[in-house]
């Protein structure tokens, strides 16, 4: 059952700028975690702020739990929306302690047992009397999250929740976030430009481009079956092979520049073919450059018609300039 419904939302800040949102639509089910992803300027944060009531759309409808929050005649103020928002830099009140921050929200202290549970679950027990500047970035993030969850919002909105954390911390916080969302059964919508975050946390991903919905689906589905080269690229390096050059591709899409059908092949799908082969999906070319990425070797291969990017085993022994035959695995 759909909890949040976004219908044809448009927003343009100034006449000279392109619209930030241009007829954006999607639905989100109750209890699910949805990631909004897209490159910067695609309108992700604007949409989040419109749902929170911090900005007004030029047109469109926002419905939350069967209640219209935005339409041509309705505007529900942010404080009456029951949408908790965690800001990118957390916006913890610097003059209040962790505990004062958490209980600041309306109704946060109504259920003291639940509040205590939330604090324990988030692993911030014992920090209550500290000030925000006295705790780490990861702890600040969890405080902001507990502060938002304590008000029992129908929808939790997170703006780039992990962007301020260093890579080491990110993995553990991702897992903690996921556990917290699952245990509190909170419907969550989060904005991210990091595909790894979205893949790890989200049940569904909404890909945005130029203020519109480009593709909606489960993470693995979008990763494997992007609807165009933009979505494919967003999910990592991709080789775009003309469909005529490859046989048996499980997924193809129309080239945006009108050059026919394209098969997206990820760099890790390639393998080296030793000796002669009759594989019709084999390509032979010269190694132009190599970068050691630690876990794998990133190789740029120049063939007669294509420039390919391959991720090969780090132990592969090849040189720049050597000739290589590669084939691709087309199994999903």
């Amino acid at each position, binding site marked *: 059952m759909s909890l949040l419904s976004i219908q044809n939302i448009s927003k343009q800040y100034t006449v000279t700028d392109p619209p930030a949102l241009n007829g954006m639509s999607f639905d989100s089910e109750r209890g699910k975690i949805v990631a909004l992803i897209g490159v910067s300027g695609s309108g992700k944060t604007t949409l989040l702020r419109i749902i*929170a*009531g911090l900005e007004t759309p030029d047109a469109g409808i926002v419905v939350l739990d069967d209640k219209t929050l935005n339409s041509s005649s309705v505007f529900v103020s942010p*404080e009456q929306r029951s949408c908790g*928002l965690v800001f990118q830099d957390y*916006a913890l*009140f*610097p*003059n209040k302690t962790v505990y004062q921050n958490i209980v600041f929200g*309306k109704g946060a202290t109504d259920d003291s047992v639940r509040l205590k549970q939330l604090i324990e679950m988030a692993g911030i027990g014992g920090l209550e009397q500290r000030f925000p500047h006295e705790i780490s970035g990861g702890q600040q993030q969890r405080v902001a999250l507990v502060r938002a969850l304590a008000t029992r919002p129908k929808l939790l909105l997170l703006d780039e929740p992990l962007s301020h954390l260093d890579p080491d911390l990110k993995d553990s916080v991702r897992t903690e976030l996921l556990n917290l969302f699952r245990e509190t059964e909170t419907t969550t919508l989060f904005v991210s430009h990091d595909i790894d975050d979205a893949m790890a946390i989200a049940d569904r991903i909404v890909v945005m481009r130029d203020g519109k919905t480009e593709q909606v689906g489960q993470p693995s589905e979008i990763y494997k079956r992007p609807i165009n080269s933009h979505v494919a690229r967003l999910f990592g390096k991709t080789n775009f092979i003309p469909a005529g050059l490859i046989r048996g591709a499980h997924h193809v899409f129309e080239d945006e520049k009108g050059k026919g059908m394209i098969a997206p092949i990820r760099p890790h799908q390639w393998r080296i073919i030793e000796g002669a082969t009759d594989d019709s999906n084999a390509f032979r070319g010269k190694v132009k450059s190599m970068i050691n990425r630690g876990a794998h070797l990133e190789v740029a291969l120049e063939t007669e018609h294509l420039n390919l990017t391959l991720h090969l085993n780090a132990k592969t022994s090849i040189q720049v300039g050597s000739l290589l035959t590669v084939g691709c695995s087309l199994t999903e």
Partner: protein
Amino acid sequence: MAEVLWHLTKPAENWEHLRDTVFGRYLKGSILLVVGTATLSILFGVSSAWLVACCEFPGRKIFEWALILPFAIPTYIAAYAYFDLIDRLTPLLIWVRVNINQEAMTLLNDTIVYPVTIIVLASVLYPYVYLVARTAFTRQSSQYIESARTLGHGPHSTFWCMALPLARPAIVGGVALVVMETLNDYGAVEHFNIPTFTTGIFRTWLAGGDLPGALRLAACLMTFILLLLVLEKWMRFGARFHKNSQSDRPFQRFPLGQAKAGVAIACCLLPLVIGFILPLSRLVYWAGLTVAKVLDMSFLKLTLNSIGISTAAGLTTVLLALFLAYTAKYFGSRTVRATNRLAILGYAVPGAVIAMGILLVAKQLNSATGWVFTGSLTVLVLAYIIRFLAVAWHPIDSGMEQNCEQLNNASRSLGASTAQSLIQINMPLLCNSLVAAGLFVFVDTMKELPLTLILRPFNFETLSTKTFDLAKQAQIPESSVSALCIIIVSLLPVVWLNRQIRTMEK
């Protein structure tokens, strides 16, 4: 300052008499005035800043800049514009005398001047609070306000529970400036006949000719100011928690319904009308009546005097401020930085106290060198430098912070000397800050009254002293032309300030 403070320990012939007769009145007057003006300035400044920064109502954008306009009106000119306010209360006083008694009338007469003076002072000084509060609400707190709203807080509780406590350190800073200006004021309190330390210094020195007594009063005032500075530091304690949370996105203001919008407009209009529109229109009206009579060669001469002395003060102060800020930045030893801090303290010291200190030093120099320093233009300019160094130092210092440090390091690593870096790299980049600093000092000097009155050479009139003299002789309409000239010049930095803040808040 040290010279003045030293006089607390020296014997003064008439001090006991002063202490027993007028000291208590000066202290009471100063405290009442400071507390009243600070409170009303907070009411005017914080409420209008909150409305303009965080609420949406018709005319908000106009109020945003218009509320700064009272800055252009010096306190003594505002007082002259309301010169007849007390007179209009005469029927009430007569009624009290007839129906109660003479004592009640005297008491009422002595008491009524306080609220009147407080309203006049607060209505032209509140922009100090308004500006810092507005910046705190829009620039520093916008994301916190949004956060409070998504946590279920409406405008009322957001203001009281979050925005106001967060803006407190900034507001305290603004109030401190209001207090300093109140204690510095001479023209308005003299006009309304309120006993304060500043009026006391004038009366003791100019009317009584008692220099040691005046110095003691100046030392008391200085101690009072130092206590206030300590109090301000203590009250701004929370400032270190303050973090800039400015969002680069437009800020959704609280929309106000018709009735609330009406109240908001009234709240913004009230200080603006009292502090700018009403005094300015009265002055314009009087100027229209008297301009033909006032404009003559002597008026031209005093205008030239004002421009000349303000230009000299502006240029020398900017040069000294540039030197100080530059040495602090690039030879940043503790001593140099401490010297900087000490040098810019002058703005907290009332003009009358600086004048007393300078007078004392000049007298000592007179006897040491045989030259006459007292009553010379050099001493007057020196006093302006001491008083307004901070006004020039702040824009130059922040200009250096923004533009020059990395570039200066780069230029020095390329082999340029510090002097070459200053002239070829820093000065061209600091051009705007230098002009602003010069303009601020120019205008402040032109408005300045107490210091000029004490230290000016014999027969040296400026626009401000002429305004004061004419007002003192009850020729208020005649004083309006010179007052208007001061206001027009004072509008220049107000316009500049407004543009700067708008750019900063974008």
